């Protein structure tokens, strides 16, 4: 019989001996080369971590392949990072270069440390979700191909954390990323009365709309939508399969920038919308990759050393950001939701 509630495996069984021995005793780290971390313990022990980019959507073949590498170079230990990179954990410095060579053979990139772009935190998209306004893995691949040089080097002003969410549910938690790509719907849900009738509680459906756009339609035992109150968040679709919101012709991506979560220097901040819409043009989403690259390059060539996207923009001012990047400003970028007022410029001091 299967055990119920046994919980996850004990991490202690998964740790390489060098970590067990030096657990909690690490003293400092260095980055001897991009993608390689060297952690030194109080005891003098040295741990090398080689960070490798992964597409995240991986087959078991991929997993077995990295297991082979871990067996060969790391005594069978490895980990994944909070941004879905693979980290090979080596106690023998002599194995670092051979490992990197093997990785190169397999086309697996080493990088993502320090002032680089790391892997893009992302979501399911058309692969496996029911409400996406765009694909996830496809854009991520296109953007990472495009910014590839910044993964394996550390020549950016600071870390660059890109997030992607394929709908406003924001499973990619892109809301606090240096650059966020967010799938957006732009047309109101098409109501399928039959599906609404089946198993949707009308009062809950009405109540779930953040802008109060949904009204009961007692005749049809369904609902109606007040068109100009709907901002296409899709929350009603989560509540009811009868509120179909995907629209191939009008779905696409918004770009937000300037989020961060670390407390270092400046407080954590939300990403802010700078481009309200770019079309879905698979397979390579050229409008999106261009926009992202242009923002990244502008930041890279204007920011000071150590300055995250957000810190750069807040220093120069958002009005200046639009001038320098040449991105057009529009009323769509001005908040009109609950906390809008706090974003209005209540000051006569600004730049042109």
């Amino acid at each position, binding site marked *: *019989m299967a055990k119920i509630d046994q919980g996850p495996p004990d991490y202690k069984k998964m740790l390489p001996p060098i970590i067990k021995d030096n657990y909690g005793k690490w003293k400092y780290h260095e980055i001897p080369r991009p993608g390689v971390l060297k952690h030194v313990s109080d005891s003098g022990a040295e*741990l090398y971590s080689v960070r490798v980019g992964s*597409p995240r959507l*991986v087959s078991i073949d991929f997993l077995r392949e990295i297991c082979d590498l871990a067996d060969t170079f790391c005594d069978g230990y490895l980990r994944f990072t909070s941004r879905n990179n693979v980290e090979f954990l080596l106690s023998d410095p002599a194995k670092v270069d051979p490992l990197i060579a093997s990785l190169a053979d397999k086309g697996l990139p080493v990088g993502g440390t320090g002032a680089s772009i790391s892997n893009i935190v992302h979501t399911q998209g058309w*692969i496996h979700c029911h409400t996406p306004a765009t694909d996830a893995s496809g854009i991520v691949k296109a953007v990472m191909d495009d910014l590839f040089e910044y993964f394996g080097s550390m020549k950016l002003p600071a870390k660059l954390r890109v997030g992607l969410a394929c709908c406003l549910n924001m499973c990619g938690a892109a809301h606090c990323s240096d650059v966020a790509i967010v799938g957006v719907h732009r047309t109101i849900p098409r109501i399928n009365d039959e599906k609404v009738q089946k198993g949707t509680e009308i009062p809950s459906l009405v109540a779930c709309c*953040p802008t109060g756009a949904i009204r009961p339609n007692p005749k049809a035992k369904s609902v109606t939508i007040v068109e100009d109150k709907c901002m296409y968040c899709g929350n009603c679709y989560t509540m009811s399969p009868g509120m179909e919101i995907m629209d191939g012709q009008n779905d696409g991506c918004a770009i937000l920038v300037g989020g961060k979560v670390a407390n270092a220097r400046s407080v954590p901040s939300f990403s802010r919308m700078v481009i309200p819409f770019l079309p879905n043009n698979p397979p390579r989403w050229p409008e999106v990759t261009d926009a992202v690259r242009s923002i990244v390059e502008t930041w890279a060539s204007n920011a000071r050393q150590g300055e995250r996207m957000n810190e750069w923009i807040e220093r120069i001012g958002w009005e200046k950001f639009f001038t320098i990047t040449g991105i057009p400003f529009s009323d769509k970028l001005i908040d009109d939701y609950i906390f809008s007022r706090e974003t209005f410029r209540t000051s006569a001091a600004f730049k042109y």
Partner: protein
Amino acid sequence: MTERKTPQLDELEKGKWPSFVTEMKKAAAKNPASEELLGLLEKSYEEKTGHWKHGGIVGVRGYGGGVIGRYTDVPEEFPHLTEFHTIRVNQPSGWFYDTKALRSICDIWEKHGSGLTNFHGSTGDVILLGTTTEHIQPLFDDLSEAGFDLGGSGSDLRTPSCCVGPARCQNACYDTLEACLNITNEYQDELHRPMWPYKFKIKFSGCANDCTASIARSDCSVIGTWRDTIRIDQDAVKQYVAEGMDIQDRICDKCPTRALKFNPESKELTVIGEDCSRCMHCINLMPKAIQAGKEKGATILLGGKSTIVQSAFMAWVIVPFMKMESENDFEEFKDLMGRIWEWWDENGKSRERIGELIYRVGMGKFLREVGLPPVPQMVFRPRANPYVFWPQDEITK
């Protein structure tokens, strides 16, 4: 094995970043559902829209969550995708694996599913992407046998996760891995059987660098910190100076509280302890010379979540400093969670995250009813309006 044409997807096998399409093709070579998934995705690329239906309820005996039902809306065209459910598997703390464990997952997934996975999902689980209703229970049985258990889904505690912490990081102010495991184990019931107003996420970061992005991505964010003062090793400072670091510019001038003073003559770096806000900046840049204080613990923040419904919320401080000790079984933390969940359960509407509930009813009410002492660390600044709800027992009748 297949004649299927996927010209758009094929494009995404080019370029230097490893390709998920290549991964899908590897899986397709062995599994008919994965093969059809290539076709479905190509179709989506043509039509620019998805082809999955709203989920249905599927699951494992004794569990209420951990499986997401998935059905395509074009089953005629892709019969193997008629059912293509997601299994969330609770990852080990810090995402550490030995190859034996990892291979066991591969073997089980080869037997019961599509062979496609996410390592990892954005909450932290191992995501096994695509199986049939029929396979769910045997799959679980095998996983369980191999030492794995399901993660969260639905209105329950979601799979907690933690940063690499003391396993590999000098900055860890508490044992994030142990906290994560211990607390996950404590709340197996809450994790596996949805019974709350909505989901609740916990993430553990060992310091204010917040490498799990907990402040943005979890209802409860546990961030390592210390109460006393950072420790500076002056010899190491001199070493950095010798290596050419401009300490005034890169460290002192970027310290948000201007708590650091560098004396260019003596090459001494000193800190005004009471001014430091423990932001981690100086420690990050001079790990050999500066380390956290000795009295370590964590700051507890509450209310983080993403956009839907009331806007994205970042978690905010509710306990500035709490000891996080495995010796006493993280008791203080668990005690707090219990009070918070009880209150949320009593007051929350359906699909109302804890942050939204507190915003709706007011932090004062929350603090009073959960029994947390109000301190100025909870706010950036006090209220600008004078709209105080006055406790009527402080009033002259």
